């Protein structure tokens, strides 16, 4: 796992912040699954809100709202916009 400067976990973004997906720290299956859902590298992703007590995050991707489990948000690396 290599974490560059300016590159953070999706989970580390604050509510309302936008990032661009750089990489996904997961298996091929997960990367492919996310790509099929339109969450590929280079995609803009905005955190709408996070829940307390390590709950899921609500994001906006390609004009639609998605809820992602916290474990997923942990694996998606983004560059803050």
């Amino acid at each position, binding site marked *: 796992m290599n974490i560059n400067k300016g590159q953070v976990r999706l989970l580390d973004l604050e509510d309302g912040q936008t990032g661009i997906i750089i990489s996904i720290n997961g298996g091929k299956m997960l990367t*492919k699954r996310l*790509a099929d859902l339109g969450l590929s590298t280079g995609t803009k992703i905005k955190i709408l809100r996070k829940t307390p007590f390590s709950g*899921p995050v609500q994001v906006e991707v390609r004009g639609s*709202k998605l809820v992602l489990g916290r474990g997923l948000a942990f694996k998606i690396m983004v560059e803050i916009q």
Partner: protein
Amino acid sequence: MTEERKISIVLAGQGNAGKSTIFNYLTGLHQHTGNWAGKTIEKFEGTLYYKGYTIDVIDLPGIYSLTTYSVEEVISREYIIKQKPDVVINIIDSTNLERSLIFTLQLLELECPVILALNMVDLARKKGVTIDSAKLQNIINAPVIPTIASRGSGLTDIVDKAIELKEGNLEYKVPRYGKEIENRIEDLSQYVKDVDLPYPERWIAIKLLEKDRDIVTSIREKDPRILREAGEAITKLEKIHGHDSSVVISDERTLLASHITREIVDIKPHRKLSLNERLEIITTHKVIGYFLMILILGAMFVGVFSFGNWLSSLFESVFQNWHEWWNNEVGTTFTATLGWAAVESVLALIQIALPYILPFYILLYVLEDWGYIARISFLMDNFMHKMGIHGKGIISFIIGLGCNVPGCLSCRIMESKRERFITAVLVTLVPCSAVSVIIFGLVGKYVGILWAFSLYLFALIVIFLAGKLSSKFMGGEPVELIMHMPDYKTPNLKTILSETWDALKEFVYIAAPIVIISGVFIQVINLAGWMPAISSFLSPVTEKWLGLPAVTGILLIFGILRKELILVMLAAYLGTTNFIEVLSPQQMITLSVVSMFYVPCVATISVLWKDFGWKKAMAVCILEILFAIVIAGIVRRALDLVF
């Protein structure tokens, strides 16, 4: 033109794009459900008679893509490829256009005639999004029809178009991707040409580049040399793009979908926050959101049960003389008594279904259609995760509060087998309406309403711990939640009623027959005079360990049929409905605890059996019986310290 004039169409698209609304609109009463061959996934079929045509409609499962990630996806694509329906209607949520188009491109790759239904265009317009459907039609070269399914608008246009597609020979064109990917696809298509498989060549080529599990296996059987060619193409692609070729293909679709969207969509952003956006902020708020959730669900629950008690006692007064009438008119012979057992079961089912289950599901589907249930999944994901399942499982729990049968069946929305099983087991511990009748009829009425609510809290704790345990026992990682969050919208009466009927249908068709048959069966045991033997056999548990009257042994046997029987028969055996005369508060609470957990009812067991096999179903029953006995005994001893 054939004489019969038949057309087959399938509906494909994501879960909440309005697919089932359109299906119900088109087929109305002419529908039937079954299972996909060898799968526990439901298959919805219906027929529409229109302009002299007999149109068969199949509703495919709601899916996000056509890969091999889930059983639903495999079923859907196999059906389209092998059954070759005349028309595929792709229903799209217009408020979610770009991501929906990725799926559309996958459909077009299958080289089947597609009609796009741009559904919920009214909601998109409200958000300031206008879609140029004529332009979209030009780009993808397939008919595009804007629809508002909840109002039925545009739906006959779809059918007209489908007829036109069937009769004419409208050409369709496959989506074209980036140049070097197209080159690879073209090269590979050449090799695939002579392979004897029911799939389009171009599609096989794409799937090979995508490393599709099923297609690679099929090709290996037919001509393994092609895999070598595919391997070379993949290496080239991966060299250029720097990541896995399966992702390269997905990215190509995403890119194309995003290009198309930019061409056809015009967005005028609102300055002001709309009412729905405000609602969104409040209902998913870190603190207020949870508070509101408890308030809404609590109000719904209390409302349904107050209404239910009122209606149920109304039924009670109607039915009360029927037994006497039966004994006088039909007689008390062996067969007549068995006949009454069947009639009584039907009456009791009515008394549970109409006052409690029906209103409960109507309210639940109001919340669902409004969009609130998705918010509950969001809020509860973390809590559910601790039990080894994700947020969507909460939906099954809530459905289970009405009746465990549709509750367990609804677990099929969970992605993996592991999740499905854990959720189903936990649902059997959720107090259903029948159990609630006991809790409110005994504890709520005679011990205090706070005690009754404590029992629900207790059930919640038990479910939580059972979830933690079973997820540990089952091993494996929980699947992460990926869920589309639909916008809030005005609930549609037709949708609510049809969803309610779907849930109630499961109660009527699955639960009711089993309850009636086993009702008669247990009456046979009763008439044979074996009941006293059973109650004395069980007395070490009921009397000694739980401190309950010996007769409860019989009640608990009957309770396997329908839990509320425990209360009904308690009155019959003890000769009074004023339970405080015959039972102490400790006994009432203990009996309620046993009733909650001791075993799922027969109907629920049959669902577990069907979905997970008899071994697992039996294991669940035995474990729950043992658990209920132990926990109720402990509760009993703790209560003796309090009272």
